[in-house]
C-alpha cells in the first residue's frame, strides 16, 4: 500500500499543474472581460487572443472571445471560437445557445459536420479517462502479481485477479490510444472569410462550384500549396484557399 501511495502521489505531482489556475492568467482574463463590459470589443478580442497565444485556454475564454466576435460582426471567427469552446466543454448550454444564435442569424445550417467511419464511433469518448482507468487496472494487476504468494492463499485465486486486471488494463490503454488517434484525425475547420468560393481545382481560375459563407464548418483533407481540399456536405468536395479557413 505504501508503494501504491508513492506511485499515485507521483502521478498527482505530474498532472496537477494542468489543473491549476494561474493567477496572472485570471488577471488578464479579468482585464479582457472588463474591456468587453465597456463595449470595447476589438480590445477585448485582442486580449482574449493574447491569452490564447500565451498557451492558456478555457471554455469561458472561448465563450467570451466568440461574444466579442459576434459584437464585431465577425461571424466566421465567432463560430470558430464557440466550436473551440465546445471541444473543452461539450455540454455547456450557453456555448450551445450562442452557437445556435449565431448560426441562425447568419443563415448557416445548425449542427456541424458529423464525423464518419471510426470517428463517429469514438466521438465523445475521453481517451484520458479510458487511459486512466486502464492504468489503474494495470497497476492493480501488477500489485496482485507481486504479492500473490502467501501461505494457504496463493495459487487458488491469483490468476483471474492478476491477469484479469492486466488484460482489461491493456485493452483499455489500447482503446484510449486508438480513440485519441482517430479523434485527432477528425479535423474540422471554419470558413472565416467572406463569400469564399469552393473551387473544383486548387487554382484561382478553377470553376466555382458554390460559395461558402463565413461560419460554415468544413472537413479539411488535403493541403496543396495555399489550397486545402475540403468536404462540405456528405458529397460536396472542393478546393478552398487555406487562408480562408481556421482549424477548430
Amino acid at each position, binding site marked *: 500500500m505504501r*508503494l*501504491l501511495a508513492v*506511485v499515485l502521489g507521483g502521478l498527482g505531482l505530474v498532472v496537477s499543474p*494542468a*489543473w491549476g*489556475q494561474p493567477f496572472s*492568467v*485570471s488577471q488578464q*482574463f*479579468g482585464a479582457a*472581460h472588463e474591456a468587453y*463590459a465597456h463595449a470595447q470589443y476589438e480590445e477585448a478580442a485582442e486580449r482574449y487572443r493574447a491569452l490564447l497565444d500565451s*498557451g*492558456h*485556454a*478555457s471554455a*469561458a*475564454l472561448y*465563450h*467570451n472571445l466568440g*461574444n466579442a466576435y*459576434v459584437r464585431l460582426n465577425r461571424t466566421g471567427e465567432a463560430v470558430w471560437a464557440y466550436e473551440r469552446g465546445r471541444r*473543452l466543454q461539450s455540454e455547456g*448550454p*450557453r456555448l450551445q*445557445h*450562442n452557437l445556435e*444564435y449565431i448560426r*441562425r*442569424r447568419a*443563415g448557416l445550417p445548425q449542427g456541424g459536420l458529423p464525423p464518419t467511419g471510426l470517428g463517429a464511433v469514438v466521438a465523445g469518448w475521453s*481517451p484520458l479517462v479510458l*487511459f486512466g482507468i486502464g*492504468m489503474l487496472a*494495470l*497497476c492493480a*494487476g*501488477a*500489485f496482485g*502479481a*507481486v*504479492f500473490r*504468494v*502467501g*501461505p*494457504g492463499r*496463493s*495459487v*487458488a485465486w491469483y490468476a483471474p485477479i492478476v491477469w484479469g486486471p492486466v488484460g482489461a488494463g491493456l485493452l483499455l490503454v489500447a482503446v*484510449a*490510444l486508438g480513440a485519441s488517434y482517430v479523434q*485527432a484525425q477528425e479535423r474540422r475547420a471554419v470558413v472565416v472569410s467572406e463569400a469564399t468560393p469552393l*473551387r*473544383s481545382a486548387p487554382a484561382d*481560375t*478553377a*470553376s466555382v*462550384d*458554390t*460559395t461558402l459563407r463565413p461560419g460554415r464548418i468544413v472537413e479539411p483533407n488535403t493541403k496543396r500549396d495555399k489550397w486545402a481540399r475540403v468536404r462540405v456536405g456528405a458529397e460536396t468536395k472542393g478546393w478552398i484557399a487555406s487562408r480562408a479557413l481556421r482549424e477548430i
Partner: protein
Amino acid sequence: MWTAQSMLVRIAMSAVVMGAVCVEGGQAQPNRTVRVTAEADPTDAAVGETVHLTVRVDGAPATVVQTPELPSTTHLEPQQRTPQTRQIRASRGGRLRQGVVFSWRLRPRQQGAARIQPLTVVVRGKQYTTAPLRVRVSARTGAPDAPTLTRPDGASSDPSLDVRDLFIRARATDDRVYQNEQVIVEYSLFYRPRIRLRRSRVAGSWDAPGFWREELDVAARPTPQRRRTDGQTYETVVLKRVALFPTRPGTLRVDPLRIETEAQGRMRMQEDGPSLRGRFEPVQIASEGLSLTARSLPEGAPPAFDGAVGQFVVRTTAEADSASVGEAVTLTMQVEGTGNLATLPPPSVESPPDVEVYEPTVETDIERDGSRIRGTKTFAYTLVPRSGGRHDLPTLAFSYFDPDAKRYKTHRAEPPTLYVSGQEGPRAVGRTSDGLPVGDVADAREASEAQWVRTDRRPLYRSAWTYLALLVPALIVGAGVAYRRWRDRPGSSPDETTPALDEDRDRLQEACRHLRRGADASFYDAVGRTLRAFLAERLGRAGPNDVPRTVLDRHLLRHDVPADLRNALYDVLDRCDEARYAPGSASVSPEDVLANAHAVLRRLGPQLPRPDDPAPRS
C-alpha cells in the same frame, strides 16, 4: 457483218486519237515550269483562332506530286497531320493547266510571333522548297463564338470525326437581362448516334466573372435524348446547368465549358459500303462562349427595395396576438419564389415604442432540382414587449423588381396588434426558461468560471507522458520483487506466518490441490510424503518412516537443526500420520498444517545441505 467491222474500226480510231491526246498532255507538262508556293491565312490571328496553311503546286498533275509532310511550326498547334488535297484543272489560252493544293489547319497557341518552317514538295523526284512563313498572334479577343473540337499533339486524326459530329452547345435563357435577374445557362453535349464516348471529364476551369452563381442539379448518369438539329440527328446530354445573377451592369462574358473525352467514330470504307469502328482517340471539345448584357434596374425603386429581382410571394405571420410583459413573440416573414434567395437581405423592421426587436434568424431553403433557382427564405424576428397594453407591431414591407412586368412591386403585411398583459417591469426580459437571452448571445463569463488548460496539449497518443506512464506497472512489479527479496534475504528473522520460498511452495502444490478439493486424507498423505522426500533428498538417505525417530534426530542434530524446528517437523509428521490413520480426529485444521509445513520446509532449507553441496564436517 459490215456493221461489226465498221464498229471495230471506229473503236481503233478512237483509241489512237485518245492516246495521242494523252501523250501530248503528258509531254506538254514537263516543259512547263513547276511552281510551289505556301501561304498562311490569316497572317494576323488571335490565340485559339484557326490559321490555314496552303501549299499550291502549279504545273504538275497530282499523280506526280508526293504528298508533303507538315513542316515544323512554332506556337502553332496542328489540327490535322494529313493535309486536305484538292486538284486543279483549268484551261487557259487553249492550254490545260494542272496543279494540286494541300492545306492544313493550325491553331495559334500563344501570343507573339508564330513561324512555319520551309516546306519541301517532291515533284517527279525533284524537291521544291517554300519560303518560311510568319503569323502574328495576338491575345485571345474573347470566347469562341462556335463550339470547337481539338486533338492533342501527336494524336491521329480520325476523318470520321469532326466538330459537326461532336460538340457542346451553350444556351442562355436570355442574353439581355436586368442586374440580379436570373438567367439559366445550360451546356449540352451533342454527338452523332454512331459515335461512342468514354472517359469524359471536365477540362480546365469554368468561370463567369461578374455573376453570382448557383448550380442547378443535373443527372449524374444522364440518359441521352435523341434530338434533331441542323437537319442531323444527335444524342444529347445536359452537362451543366447554372443560374447566373449579374452583380453589375454591362457586358459580361461566360466562359466556354470544356471537356476531354475519348471518342470512337465509325470509319466508312466506301460509299454505302460496310463501315468499321475506328480507335478511341482523345479529343477536347468546348462550347461557344456566351456574352450577356446586364442592364441597370430602372429608376423609381421603392424605399423597401434592397436588390431583390424575380417573382416572389410574401407571407407574414405573428406567433401570438397576446403576451405578457417580457414574453417573447415571434414575427415571421416568409419570402418564396424565383430569384437569388441566397443574397436576399432581411427586411429592416422599425422598433415600435416599448417593444424590443431583435435581429432575425434566417433560414434558407433553395430548390435546385427545377429548371430555375427557386425556394423559400424565412426571417423570424423576436419581439419582446417591455410594457403592458396594446402595441401595434411594425409593418413588414418587402419590395422587389419583377423583370417580366418590368416594374417594382411591394408586399406590405398588415401590422398585427399585440395585447400585452402586466404592467410591472420585466424580471427576465427576453430570456428563456434557462435564463438565456432570446435573440442574443449569452452573457460573457467571469474569470472564476474559467478552468484553464494548456493550448499546446498534445493528443494522448502523441504525448511522451503517456508512454512513460506505461512504465508504472513495470516499476511496481520491479519494486515489489525487490522488496520481497530484501525481506527474504538470508539472516533475516524468520516469521512463521511469512510465505514459504517458491521451492517449498512447489513441493507442496500437490497437497494444496488436495486441500482445494477437500480430500483431507490425500492432503495429509501428500504433506507427509513431501516432507519425507525433502528429508531424504537433503540427508541422502531414506525417509523418516524408514528410520527411527532417534536416528533422524541424530542426523538433524549433526546439521545443527534447532530443537524447536525439529519439534515442529515431528509435529507436522505426527499430525499427518494421525490424520491418515485416525481421520476426523485431527485437532488442527488442514490449513494450519499446510502453513506449518511451509514454515518447516522454509527453515530447514538453509539448515540442510543440498545434494550437490559439500558434506558437513562431522
